């Protein structure tokens, strides 16, 4: 073991150099999920459940108009309602210097590199500016509404939720309705209404940029064939399980926050900034989180963070805890919907499947995703061009919802599927033909792997082989539109692929504290979003320290000064796992020093458990310290640490270590090549009479580098399938085209996939060890739901012989495509 554990080097381009040969607990199946008993028995507490003595309930007024200004507002009747304790108006002096954009902390850290989105492939000129963030995000509790349902005007705190709701209805407002625009294409037309003239009085453009690699025109000339096609991806939304709420209690000059937030520490930072408080006066509690999926992060923080400011001001006024809560409809309005995107493709390729050039023109509503990233990161295509434009419109903010790669993954899927279809080739062959990195081929990537300490494995080849076998691809895949089943349905097989998620930008820190009974607490705060971080990190610490898993616990709910990235068991694990791993190794070293070092108290010297040995003579297994040369000489960890930490006056000092890690500026810097791949296969049946699509089977094969908790990774696979198929076939936020009123802001009209909506999911993990995270791991949580729409689209094409490149692929669109296929001579 390296004696200088505290300075274990972490090199951003190099594989973890400190991986042991064998694992006892990491990767082990059959472990009970540590949060499972609480969650299954209803004992897990969520922010929505928090109720404090004297608590009042706050509701914020939702705008009835998609674009309107408050001309005058009378809150007297609301204030006079018995039980109403406070009304906070948008024009109150307490809010005068607090436009609640919610994301300024990202621009308050010294340099832009602190923000994951600030740099794209290391290019400063592509950094998102604060003005752009503001325009895409919106504000909370202002005098102007930028979308229907926008929380504006006033917030009311009352003794009960019902009274707060009733008081909102008593607020009299004279509105000035303003012209609105609801579609990004309309928003770009000359003379279009301005969606947010308070920030951009010239036009509706949020961002406009170009990215170019090589020479696409040259690539098109080299091609045997050039195709063009268009696609649209309509907005879908988080529809998270737990409706938004927070609780804030102002205690004298200290404040406590109970937050439903994915990046809760950022919320604390903004609260401190806006309220003029030092961070050490604010104590943050993050109970269990009823799902997040990133939808409450980034620009959406104007809600999750802005709500804190409102609760905070009201709590300070009243001297009582304030719970601000959104109902189901509010939650639908005010969490991220993924951007409405119109994308045009031009693709050149050779007869053998080699793609020579891809040009993408992408227009997104609000803030979207470029669409070109995955071509850069995991293909050898040398000539790429992107024209990207974000247009502001009067709908709720759009941004990343599981995850920032949605459009990037779909664009890659569409291009590869269309090329394979044009050539009549097996799409797995086209994928393998173009696999590479940043325009370079696999030979280059192979050399890179060897030079940087990674195993040199063909990740895509392995994933495809496993997946083909699992779905019986070689026997079932067929030419498009050629297989009708005995039940009259059209049979389709689809394939798509991309690279792993290595969301490794960021920082994490954690402590490892061993109590005098030998049990360990991991000290760090993070949101539990369902990624099983609790078990995962306990596995790491137990593995590294030689402890029984039962002797390690991780209660991440309280503010302890350390934070980890969230989510976890997911991509952020590539960062987070380093800190628990390193702190645990250091703690073990300290434990063995305790076991061999006497304690001197002036005139008395207490001998250690192993008085005649050095730390290197010892090891730990199953929570027992033993002599390596003679394991029969041993002592329980509890006894070692109890002796060393001496009870004096009823107190003891724990064994304690901590670690922090900052990795990369952004997970996709150029030159930090992606090496792991994932392959997806789907089998569908399309009803030619209704256009309905039944998903019979999905096969996910993900190279996760290394799976610490295999069941957790598999949970992300099948869980992502349900969300991904929902996105492919049904999920869409629908607005009234004239008024901008959201028409399906509830779980009856917004279809979320349920148990019977997929027949079978088959999940395979490939572990090549080619991730940048600790132990060679990378992430999985964001991958599946992001990529699955592409494979469903491919399978539908294979079934009907015509593309439905308008997601979601609802039955009406599928029927139209079937009609088109028939006109084209199929069937």
């Amino acid at each position, binding site marked *: 073991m390296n004696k200088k554990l505290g300075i274990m080097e972490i090199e951003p381009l190099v594989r973890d150099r400190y991986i042991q040969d064998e694992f006892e607990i990491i990767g082990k199946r059959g472990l009970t999920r540590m949060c499972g008993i609480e*969650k*299954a028995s209803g004992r897990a507490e969520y922010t929505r459940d928090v109720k404090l003595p004297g608590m009042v309930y706050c509701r914020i007024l939702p705008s009835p108009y998609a674009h309107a200004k408050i001309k005058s507002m009378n809150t007297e009747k609301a204030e006079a309602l018995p039980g109403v304790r406070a009304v906070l108006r948008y024009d109150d002096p307490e809010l005068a210097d607090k436009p609640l954009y919610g994301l300024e902390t990202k621009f308050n850290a010294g340099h832009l590199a602190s923000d994951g989105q600030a740099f794209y492939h290391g290019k400063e000129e592509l950094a998102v500016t604060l003005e752009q963030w503001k325009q895409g995000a919106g504000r909370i509790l202002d005098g102007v509404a930028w979308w229907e349902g926008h929380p504006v005007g006033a917030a009311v705190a009352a003794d009960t939720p*019902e009274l707060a709701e009733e008081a909102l209805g008593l607020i009299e407002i004279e509105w000035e309705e303003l012209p609105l625009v609801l579609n990004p294409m309309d928003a770009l037309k000359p003379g279009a209404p301005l969606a947010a003239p308070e920030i951009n009085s010239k036009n509706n453009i949020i961002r406009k940029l170009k990215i170019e690699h090589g020479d696409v025109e040259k690539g098109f000339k080299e091609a045997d064939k050039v195709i063009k096609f268009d696609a649209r991806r309509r907005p879908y939304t988080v529809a998270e399980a737990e409706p938004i709420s927070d609780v804030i209690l102002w205690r004298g000059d200290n404040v406590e926050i109970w937050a439903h937030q994915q990046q809760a520490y950022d919320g604390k930072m903004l609260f401190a900034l806006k309220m003029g408080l030092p961070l050490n006066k604010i104590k943050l509690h993050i109970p269990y989180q009823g799902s997040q999926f990133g939808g409450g992060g980034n620009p959406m923080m104007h809600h999750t963070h802005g709500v804190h400011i409102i609760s905070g001001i009201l709590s300070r006024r009243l001297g009582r805890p304030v719970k601000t809560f959104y109902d189901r409809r509010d939650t639908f309005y005010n969490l991220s919907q993924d951007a409405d995107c119109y994308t045009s493709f031009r693709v050149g390729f050779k007869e053998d499947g080699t793609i020579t050039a891809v040009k993408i023109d992408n227009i997104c509503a609000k803030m979207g995703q470029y669409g070109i990233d995955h071509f850069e990161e995991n293909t050898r295509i040398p000539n790429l061009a992107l024209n990207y434009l974000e247009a502001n419109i009067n709908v709720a903010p759009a941004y990343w919802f599981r995850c920032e790669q949605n459009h990037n993954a779909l664009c890659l899927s569409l291009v590869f599927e269309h090329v394979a279809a044009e050539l009549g080739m097996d799409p797995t062959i086209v994928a393998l033909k173009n696999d590479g990195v940043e325009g370079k081929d696999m030979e280059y990537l192979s050399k890179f792997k060897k030079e940087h300490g990674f195993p040199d494995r063909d990740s895509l080849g392995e994933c495809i082989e496993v997946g083909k076998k699992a779905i019986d691809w070689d026997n079932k895949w067929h030419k498009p539109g050629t297989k009708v089943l005995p039940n009259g349905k059209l049979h389709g097989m689809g394939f798509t692929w991309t690279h792993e998620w290595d969301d490794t930008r960021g920082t994490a820190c954690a402590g490892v504290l061993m109590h005098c009974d030998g049990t360990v607490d991991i000290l760090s705060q993070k949101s539990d979003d369902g990624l099983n971080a609790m078990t995962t990190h306990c596995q790491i610490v137990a593995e590294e320290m030689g402890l029984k898993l039962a002797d390690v616990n991780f209660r991440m709910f309280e503010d302890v000064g350390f934070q980890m990235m969230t989510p976890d068991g997911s991509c952020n694990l590539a960062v987070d796992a380093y800190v628990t791993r390193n702190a645990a190794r250091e703690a073990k070293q300290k434990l063995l020093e305790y076991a061999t070092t006497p304690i001197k108290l002036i005139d008395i010297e207490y001998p250690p458990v192993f008085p005649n040995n050095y730390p290197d003579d010892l090891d730990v297994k199953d929570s027992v310290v033993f002599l390596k040369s003679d394991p029969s000489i041993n002592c329980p960890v509890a006894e070692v640490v109890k002796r060393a930490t001496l009870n004096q006056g009823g107190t003891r000092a724990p064994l304690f270590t901590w670690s922090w890690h900052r990795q990369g500026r952004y997970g996709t810097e150029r030159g930090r090549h992606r090496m792991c791949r994932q392959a997806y296969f789907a089998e569908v049946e399309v009803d030619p009479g209704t256009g309905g699509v039944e998903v019979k089977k999905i096969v996910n094969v993900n190279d996760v580098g290394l799976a610490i908790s295999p069941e957790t990774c598999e949970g992300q696979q*099948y*869980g992502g399938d349900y969300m991904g198929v929902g996105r492919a076939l049904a999920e869409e936020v629908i607005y009234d085209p004239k008024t901008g009123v959201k028409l399906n802001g509830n779980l009856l009209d917004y279809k979320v996939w349920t148990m019977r909506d997929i027949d079978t999911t088959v999940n395979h993990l490939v572990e090549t060890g080619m991730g940048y995270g600790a132990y060679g791991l990378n992430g999985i949580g964001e991958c599946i739901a992001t990529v699955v729409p592409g494979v469903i689209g491919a399978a539908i094409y294979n079934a009907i012989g015509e593309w439905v490149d308008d997601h979601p692929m609802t039955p009406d669109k599928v029927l139209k495509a079937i009609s088109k296929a028939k006109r084209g001579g199929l069937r």
Partner: protein
Amino acid sequence: MAENNGGAKKVSLKINNQEYGIVVEPHWTLREVIHDKLGLTGTKEMCDHGACGSCTVIMNGRPILSCMTLAIECEGKVIETVEIVDIEKHPLVMAYANNHAMQCGYCTPGFVMTAKALLDRNPNPGEEDIKDALEGNICRCGTYPAHIGAILEASTKLEGGK
């Protein structure tokens, strides 16, 4: 609506084998009473429209949606909330934890109560029985396949205990 509208009424309920007498307003749902007034917070608010099953409780032996049930209409009812599975050490709890049949866990109590109602009337369900029982529950994390294994495991434990 204000609370003092004159329609409040005392109802007697038996919840998790405990007797309760509580004055309820006519518009209060059973979910509000259980979660907000009695502090049995395992019964979750998710859709609030009878669409998701997260607020499922067992009333007189049948799983019902407590967000769609007025408390004032529940006089004399015998109710079980998810807390009963903890109190009674029902094998569903460990089976759910062992099978990772939850992610964020917010909807899990609703699934567990639906599953308990199934096992109460059919201690040895097949996979199709489980799908029939749970198809009305929404899990945004998509944990659906794991529930089948969990309920089958719990069923085995229940059968073994007899």
